[in-house]
């Protein structure tokens, strides 16, 4: 984390030194680098399947000067992009495990990358096809814990989880800089919560003062019972639905990703963002190629394209997440580059923790606990078999009775 903050201090310094208004005029001079032969696959009628988070790329939303990343790639290289979304790392994992669908690019988060590497689900990248990794990615994002030898992934964005709240609905007396507020009964029915287990458990664990990577069964069970208590106060468990609900003022409090907080605040100025002092999660989302990708080289070209300063800048501007790129911050609108939500100060960063891949047994326990939190009921294990036999018996009985009766009537 220390490395990261040094890098940030340096970045902020460059931003401060460079003359004001630099961003608007200078970005127009940005063009694609000639680090690779972009035309390599032109005319070969290749399509790559890109599987990314929802709202996680710059698209043409009709505003002036909008940049459509995938269209720009198609124009530059002649490769078609088939772009689809997932809502959580776990959904992505399940999709890949189920097989049947083939993707060329996926963008999971750190802990999921580590898990996929462990389970032999990722293809090693050929970095000679991705020169931009060496040239343009900040050294602070090389050799990350999840991929220590830089073999499988290229960082796309990073960010942290914080608390988004509606200033008109939250009592100013209440402390939004603590996860405690998510257990405050005053806000019953006004709280939104992550619908993915890892993030939800992270919050409960931090609330109870544990590590977010704990493998201790007792601690996990405590976290689960905290989440069960919280369920009474939760309005809904959501992922991307949060945009509509928070912007529309449907809920008062919701933990979510910093970059998306910026997007929501831009749409509804009544919203604000806080990082609880108990600590939170810092994550990196990185581009990977899953095993079984049909167009690996074209996919690597896509990764290289995404690392282009111009492209990374446009994506960064659009989605508001923080960039792991060396030069993007120089071009970024100073307002965003200096925004404490996207680029928090050293003290905040020091108080964060990154997810690591948990042992299988722990992952399984979390999944089990999470399902039982959402369904919350205890019953004897024999109930379903007995119920099944009763159902079968009854339906056979009814049909036999019918047949017998029919015969008698004939």
């Amino acid at each position, binding site marked *: 984390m220390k490395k990261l903050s040094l890098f940030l201090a340096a970045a902020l310094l460059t931003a401060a030194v460079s003359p004001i208004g630099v961003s608007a005029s200078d970005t127009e001079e940005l063009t694609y680098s000639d680090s690779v032969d972009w035309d390599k696959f032109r005319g070969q009628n290749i399509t790559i399947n890109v599987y990314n988070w929802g709202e996680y790329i710059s698209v043409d939303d009709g505003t002036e000067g909008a940049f459509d990343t995938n269209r720009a790639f198609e124009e530059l290289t002649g490769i078609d992009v088939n772009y689809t979304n997932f809502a959580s790392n776990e959904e992505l*994992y399940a999709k890949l495990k189920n097989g049947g669908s083939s993707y060329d690019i996926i963008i999971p988060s750190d802990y999921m990358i580590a898990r996929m590497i462990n389970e032999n689900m990722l293809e090693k990248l050929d970095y000679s096809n991705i020169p931009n990794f060496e040239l343009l990615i900040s050294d602070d994002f090389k050799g990350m814990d999840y991929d220590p030898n830089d073999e499988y992934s290229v960082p796309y964005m990073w960010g942290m989880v914080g608390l988004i709240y509606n200033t008109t609905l939250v009592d100013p007396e209440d402390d939004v800089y603590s996860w405690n507020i998510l257990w405050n009964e005053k806000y019953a029915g006004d709280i939104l919560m992550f619908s993915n287990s890892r993030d939800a458990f992270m919050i409960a664990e931090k609330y109870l003062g544990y590590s977010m990577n704990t493998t201790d069964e007792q601690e996990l069970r405590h976290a689960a019972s905290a989440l069960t208590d919280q369920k009474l106060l939760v309005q809904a*468990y959501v992922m991307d639905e949060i945009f509509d609900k928070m912007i529309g003022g449907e809920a008062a409090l919701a933990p979510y990703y910093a970059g998306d907080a910026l997007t929501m605040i831009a749409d509804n100025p009544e919203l604000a963002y806080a990082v609880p002092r108990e600590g939170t999660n810092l994550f990196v989302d990185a581009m990977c190629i899953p095993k079984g990708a049909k167009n690996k080289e074209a996919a690597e070209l896509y990764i290289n394209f995404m690392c282009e300063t111009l492209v990374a800048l446009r994506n960064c501007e659009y989605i508001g997440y923080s960039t792991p790129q060396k030069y993007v911050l120089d071009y970024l609108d100073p307002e965003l580059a200096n925004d404490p939500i996207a680029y928090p100060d050293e003290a905040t960063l020091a108080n964060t923790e990154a997810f690591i891949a948990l042992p299988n047994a722990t992952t399984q326990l979390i*999944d089990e606990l999470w399902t039982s939190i959402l369904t919350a009921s205890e019953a*004897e294990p024999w109930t379903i078999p007995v119920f099944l036999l009763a159902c079968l018996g009854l339906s056979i009985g009814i049909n036999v009775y019918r047949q017998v009766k029919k015969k008698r009537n004939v």
Partner: protein
Amino acid sequence: MSKKSKYAAVPYLVWMVIFILVPLILIGVFAFTTTVQVDSEGNVLTTEEYDTYVADLIAEYDEIGEDYDINELLENDDITEKTVFTLAHILEVSKYSSVLINSAWLALIATAICLVIAYPLAYMISRMRESRQKLALMLVMLPMWMNFLLRTYAWMTLLEKNGLINKLFGLIGLGPFEMINTQGAVVLGMIYNYLPFMILPLYSVMTKIDSRTIEAAQDLGANGIQVLGRVIIPLSMPGVATGITQVFVPSISTFIISRMLGGGTNMLIGDLIDLQFLGNAYNPSLGAAISLVLMVFIILCMSITNQLDNEDMEGVLM
């Protein structure tokens, strides 16, 4: 039936085998099997034993400092995976029996309300002039021309706390009411989405009831209630049975309605299955076991509703 006409069923038979029978068998296999690690002597390793074994192996090779592929090492040591029969998944489903009961209850309410709404409407349509009937049927079908998700999403914006309905109530000084993220909202979603499936079979049966049958009953002195109870209801029973099945089955297994309108806190059996296959708790075996339980339950419900169009049942009902 001539031999030739039998061949006409071949395309469907092929379809049925590939897309119905094979998946059913797969569900059964998933639900009743589990993989275990077996060592060279055929002893089954528990998860802990296996984990320590792998950890030891890794530690050993890390000490030597050699490059290795852990899967290869395990293969060399004759540690293999074996698929064995188990009842564990089915037993595990018991944990979620309250979810199943809740889903069945909500689906039952939705089906009952659909029947109450659809029955008089279907009768009215069936007694209209031919040209009017077509128009009325089109109106019934109209919402189905829109995407299912879109329709449910629209209900979200209607029912929300700051949604249209609460805003209207606000104008006359009422509310706001808690409507979204409740079981009522889920039932509403089911009724809205599946009502046409109740109306259509009822209508198609009722158009076949000859008006002269009803007139005959009236001539013989039956009053309105008697005509309904002794003529119309018994004759429309096959439609009722089909309608109930067509509404109940998708209602009990829905997952998107409860997620969008129930806010993820009112989990139904469909959500649970979805969670096992595409959600956080990736566990296809448990998912298959739940699906199996749901299927058996639906078979029971269908054999009960089938009783309704049994000709012997006429009169019994009244």
